């Protein structure tokens, strides 16, 4: 199998590399030292399996796996962790493949034999246990993923089929529902309409326009977004507070 090793610690990567070298049936196609570079290398090398450390600076292993799961043909993921009580519980509960450091050769072989892709429900359950929100939203560009930091997102807007992310760098289509996004990012974003979810920090004002309809005006966007009657009380309350 073609394997990608992801760990922020060089010695930990070296150890997995050495274990895999004992067995001719596996080939290490690349090593990555962060979640971000993992996503790039997956697009480039198309590995069958990713050995993914959980505790990494920047994008952690669980978020990396969630982005990987959005690919058309995602690699199987085996998580590797030293000691994260919450994660181990969650893995067991969700039947997701994981290995504990220091990794034993035979366990690694066994895990590779059974390597499977974690499903989206499994991954969101893992994320939920740790209370970790994603810090990036991924959009697909062919095989590759483009990452949009959540801090730079101004609002999400839904039309018939897709959701558009409007961010500092432009606008991109994503394949997620507003409802899920609202649940995940409810602390920093507020639903203003059935079709729009807005970053609280970007709301400059909530006012009535000439026709008497309530609109939310975002910084740098003079046109404003419609606020529906249903969400109006909640929007007023949260904007005032923020």
């Amino acid at each position, binding site marked *: 199998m073609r394997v990608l090793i992801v760990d922020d610690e060089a010695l930990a990567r070296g150890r997995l590399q*050495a274990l895999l070298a004992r067995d001719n049936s596996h080939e290490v196609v690349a090593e990555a030292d962060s979640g971000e570079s993992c996503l790039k290398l997956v697009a480039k090398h198309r590995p069958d399996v990713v050995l993914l450390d959980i505790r990494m600076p920047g994008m952690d292993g669980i978020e990396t796996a969630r982005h990987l799961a959005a690919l058309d043909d995602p690699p199987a993921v085996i998580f590797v962790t030293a*000691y994260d009580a919450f994660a181990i519980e969650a893995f067991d509960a969700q039947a997701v493949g994981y290995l504990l450091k*220091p990794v034993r050769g035979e366990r690694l072989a066994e895990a590779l034999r059974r390597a499977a892709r974690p499903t989206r429900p499994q991954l969101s359950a893992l994320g939920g246990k740790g209370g970790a929100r994603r810090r990036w939203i991924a959009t697909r560009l062919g095989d590759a993923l483009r990452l949009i930091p959540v801090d730079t997102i101004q609002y999400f807007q839904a039309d018939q089929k897709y959701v558009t992310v409007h961010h500092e760098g432009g606008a991109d289509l994503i394949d997620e529902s507003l409802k899920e996004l609202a649940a995940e990012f409810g602390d920093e974003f507020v639903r203003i309409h059935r079709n729009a979810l807005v970053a609280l920090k970007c709301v400059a004002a909530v006012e009535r326009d000439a026709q008497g309809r309530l609109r939310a005006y975002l910084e740098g966007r003079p046109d404003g977004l419609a606020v529906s009657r249903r969400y109006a009380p909640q929007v007023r309350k949260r904007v005032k507070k923020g």
Partner: protein
Amino acid sequence: MGSSEQSEPRRSDGLFLPDFCSARVVLAVVLLAELVAILLTLARYEAGEQFWDNLARISLFLLWCTLLSAGLLCAARSSFAARGPAATSLAALGIVLASVAVVSAGAWWMGRAWQGLPALLAGADTGRLPVFMSTNMLIAAIVTGLLLRYFWVAAQWRREVREEARSRIRALQARIRPHFLFNSMNTIAALTRTDPKRAEEAVEDLSDLFRASLSDATSTVTLKEELELSRIYQRIEEHRLGDRLAVEWRIASLPLRARIPALSVQPLLENAIYHGIEPLQGGGTIVIEGSYDAARGVIELTIENPLAEPLAGGAARREGNHMALDNLRQRFALAWGGRASVQAGPSGQHYRVVLRFPAEVSA
């Protein structure tokens, strides 16, 4: 906290009584006897009687009873150590009752022998011996019973406080260890093939660190030893984090013979690495700075790390950080009372912990 109590907590079951061999306890018991004497005198007081004479006689009687009991309890203390609380209580009650009986009999005979002397106790000169004795013994039994109950409750309370402190320390040690332990083991596993010499060093360092962490949580070490331990810890983490970890030591002015509770600096360095360095992709620098105010005899030690966003599982670790600090505060308070302090908080782009404590050379 005596070492015997620490090593064998079960043994202290029978030792819930205070040590009647110590002068402080004897003084307390004498004062208590005087209070009971006043109580008895007041209870029997009728207008026209001589209050002070009665008080003097009852006091004299009670002091004999008390001192005899205390003496016997002191002598019997060593045999209490091996017994349970019920046996100890019964034995103590028996000793007190026997003392009261002996002193009562003595007082009664004295009263008969010297008819001319003022009666030692109301009733001693007129009443019959069995009545006199049983009244006194009943009073003694009630007072002793109350006291035994009080000693038992007080001892239980003290033990609970001690147990709680100990279990918190244990919980803290358990909380810090796993992540570090397994990562270090992984490091050693990786080094064993590629660099056996460094692997050997790492095993030695890890052993030193664990030996220190198994030592008594209330013991003190010299500043030199504690800083040495922190450097050992730093070495292990350097294998793992490589260039991402830099520690700047500015401790030239510290009096290295001063004593400090064991494991007070190392856990702070551990926190600084865990919260400040690991979450940063490029790593960072931890600064450990010490200064010594010779005029006031105060040492100040500052540990500073860059502020970073927590990694996965960060919420639970944050709690761990507070536990480490609370624990350190408690141990500093235990060692120095109000003369030491532990301050922690963000300062600009850094997180800073400041320890202040008196420089004391002896333990």
